[in-house]
C-alpha cells in the first residue's frame, strides 16, 4: 500500500533476562513485542489497545526509535528508521513525535514553558530561526489552548491537563506528520480528559496529522480511532476499523475485553453479558505455545496449543483476527448520538 505513512513489518523486540553479575549470561528473553505488523495511513488514527504488559508501550518506543528492534522494520515513507543513525535519524525524528502519559514527570521542572516548547528548535534550528522562536512558542501555546502570557511559567504552576497541553505543544513544535500518543489522557480527570481528546482531534484536522494512539481505555480509543489494533502478550490478535472491532469482534480476547468495560448506564446493569476471564496474563518470558491466549480462553482446543493462529481474515468476517475459531459475537450495542 502506498498511502501508508508508516509501515511496520514483523516487528520484534526482545529484552534479555540475565543472571550473574560478573559473568552475565542470558537465561531468557522477555518477548515484549513479538511479530507485529500494521500500516498507518496518512491522516488516520490507529488505536492500539491492550492490558498492561501486552507490549503497547514498547511498541511506542520502537516506533520512535528510542529502542532498536530485535527484528523487523519500521518504514517511514520508504525509509527503514531502525537502520538510520546520525544526521539522517535526526532529520527523521522531526517527523515522528511522542506525547507521553505522565505530564508530571515528562516535563523538566527547572525549565520554563517557553524553554520546554522551544527546545526542539535548538536541535532543529532550520524549523525556526533564532529571532522568531519566542513568537513561535507563543503561537503554539495559543494553539493548544494555553495563555501565551504564561510563557515564563514553570510546569508546577500548571494543572495536569494544562501540562499535557504543554506536552502536546512540544510534540507539535517541529510540525511532525506522525504523533505517537502513549496513554495521553489516562492520568487526567474525566472533565479534563475530554478537553484534551477534543484538542487532539482538532489538531489532527488542522495539520493532517496521523496518530498512533496507545491506550488501555477502550472507550477513549473508540472515540478517537479510525482503526484499532488489539494486542495481547506482544502480538496483535485482531485489527480492523473502529466498527469492525467494536461491533463485530471475532477474537475471544477482544470480546472479553469489550464485555468487561463498565458502561456508564445503570439501566444496562442486568442485561449485559460479561465474559469473565480467569487467571492472569502469562509471563512474556515464556508465553504459552501456539495461541498465547489459549490459557485463558474458553474456546481453546488442542490445535490452539500446537499452531500459532495467523492474523488473517477468517470465514464469516471482514477483518483480520488471530484465532482458529474466530466467530462474530455482538458485545456492545452501539447507537448513534
Amino acid at each position, binding site marked *: 500500500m502506498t498511502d501508508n505513512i508508516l509501515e511496520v513489518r514483523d516487528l520484534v523486540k526482545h529484552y534479555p533476562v540475565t543472571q550473574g553479575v560478573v559473568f552475565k549470561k542470558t537465561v531468557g528473553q522477555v518477548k515484549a513485542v513479538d511479530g507485529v505488523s500494521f500500516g498507518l495511513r496518512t491522516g488516520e488514527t490507529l488505536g492500539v489497545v491492550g*492490558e498492561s504488559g501486552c507490549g503497547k508501550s514498547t511498541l511506542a518506543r520502537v516506533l520512535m526509535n528510542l529502542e532498536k528492534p530485535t527484528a523487523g522494520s519500521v518504514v517511514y515513507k520508504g525509509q527503514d528508521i531502525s537502520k538510520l543513525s546520525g544526521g539522517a535519524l535526526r532529520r527523521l525524528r522531526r517527523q515522528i513525535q511522542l506525547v507521553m502519559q505522565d505530564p508530571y514527570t515528562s516535563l523538566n521542572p527547572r525549565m520554563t514553558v517557553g524553554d520546554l516548547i522551544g527546545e526542539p528548535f535548538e536541535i532543529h534550528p532550520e524549523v525556526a530561526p533564532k529571532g522568531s522562536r519566542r513568537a513561535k512558542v507563543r503561537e503554539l501555546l495559543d494553539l493548544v489552548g494555553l495563555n501565551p502570557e504564561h510563557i515564563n511559567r514553570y510546569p508546577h504552576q500548571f494543572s495536569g491537563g494544562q501540562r499535557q497541553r504543554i506536552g502536546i505543544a512540544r510534540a507539535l513544535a517541529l510540525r511532525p506528520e506522525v504523533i505517537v500518543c502513549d496513554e495521553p489522557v489516562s492520568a487526567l480527570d474525566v472533565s479534563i480528559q475530554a478537553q484534551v481528546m477534543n484538542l487532539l482531534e482538532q489538531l489532527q484536522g488542522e495539520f493532517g496529522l496521523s496518530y498512533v494512539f496507545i491506550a488501555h481505555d477502550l472507550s477513549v480509543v473508540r472515540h478517537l480511532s479510525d482503526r484499532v489494533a488489539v494486542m495481547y502478550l506482544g502480538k496483535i490478535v485482531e485489527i480492523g476499523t473502529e466498527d469492525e472491532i467494536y461491533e463485530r469482534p471475532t477474537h475471544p480476547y477482544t470480546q472479553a475485553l469489550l464485555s*468487561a468495560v463498565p458502561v456508564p448506564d445503570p439501566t444496562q446493569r442486568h442485561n449485559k453479558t460479561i465474559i469473565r476471564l480467569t487467571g492472569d496474563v502469562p509471563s512474556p518470558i515464556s508465553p504459552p505455545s501456539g495461541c498465547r491466549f489459549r490459557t485463558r480462553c474458553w474456546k481453546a482446543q488442542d490445535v490452539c496449543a500446537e499452531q500459532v493462529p495467523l492474523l488473517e481474515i477468517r470465514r464469516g468476517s471482514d477483518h483480520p483476527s488471530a484465532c482458529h475459531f474466530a466467530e462474530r459475537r455482538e458485545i456492545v450495542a452501539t447507537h448513534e448520538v
Partner: protein
Amino acid sequence: MSDILVSEQSAPGTGGSGRPSGRLLEVDDLRVEFRTRDGVAKVINGVTYHVDAGETLAVLGESGSGKSVTAQTIMGILDTPPGFVTGGQVRFHGKDMLRMSNEERRRIRGEGIAMIFQDALSALNPVFTVGFQIAEQFRVRRGMGRADAKKRAIEMLDQVKIPNAKSRFNNYPHQFSGGMRQRAMIAMSLALDPEVLIADEPTTALDVTVQAQIMDLLAELQRERQMGMILITHDLGVVADVADRIAVMYAGRIVEEADVYDLYAKPAHPYTMGLIDSIPRMDEKGQQLRTIKGLPPNLMNIPPGCPFNPRCPMAQPVCREKIPPLLQVGHARASACHFAEELVNRD
C-alpha cells in the same frame, strides 16, 4: 432505596447537629482544612452523607474534590498536620468518632470500619508474607494462636478466590500480580468482619478484565455480609454497575446526591451533567465530546457563591453571590444548585 439526609450546609464552624438517627455510619457537616506553608486549603466544606448496612454509596469526584480526605477522616488516618478537622461529626452507630479516644477509635478500625486502597503494593508491607499480615490481625485482635490464625488467614484467602491459598500464604506481596494483591488486601480488610467497608479507588490501577473480577468479588462479599460499602471513585462506569446511591463531590462539597438510576437518567446539577456528557462511551458513536470548560478551583481560593459557577454553563448572577445549599429536589434526591428544580423538571 433509603431516603436522603438533606443538610443545610450551614455556615462554617457551626459543627454537626449531633442528633442520633440509628444510621450505621454518618458523616455530618464535616469540615477539613489543610494548613500549609502557602496558605489554608479548604478541602472539605460541609460534607454530609451516610451509609446503611447492605447498601453501596458511591462517592464520585475528580482529583481534589475531597472524596479521599473524607474517607481518611472517617478512618482516622488523616495526616495531622497539615490536615485539621474544623467542624462536623463522623458518627458510627450514633457515636461521634471524632471525639473518641485513640483507643476507642482503634477498636472500630478493622472491626467496625475497614478500608482498602488503590495501590495494593504500597498498602501491603513488603517484608512480611501476605499470609502473616492477614494472620496478624487474628492474633493481635482476636488473641488466636499461631496455628489457628494461619488457618483463618487461609480461609480468608480462599474467600477472596486466591487459587492455592495454602501455598500462597507464604508468598510476599511482590510475588502476587496486581489483581491478586488487591484480593489479598480485600481479605485483610474483611478479616475482622467490618460493618462498613470503604473502598478508595479499588480498581483504578487494574486492567479492565481484572477490574471486572475485583468488582464482582466486592459486590458478592458485600451481599453475603450485608456490609455497608462506600465506594470512592472517579469512574462513572464502575459506579453505574454497582452503586445504590451516588454522592457527587466538587470542591469539598456534595453537589448532588441521588439514587443511581435517577442520577444517570436526569442529573440535577450542572456539574454531574457535564461529567456524564464528557465521558466517551463505548456504546455510542459521536462527534465532539462535550466538555466542562475551565479547571477545578484552587482550594485555597474557592470562588464566592457556588464553587462551580465559573465553569457552569447555566451560571446567573445569584450563583456568584450565594452558596446553594444541598436541598431536596423531587423524590429522594438532593442537589446544591440554585436551578435544581428546573433541571429536574426539564423534559
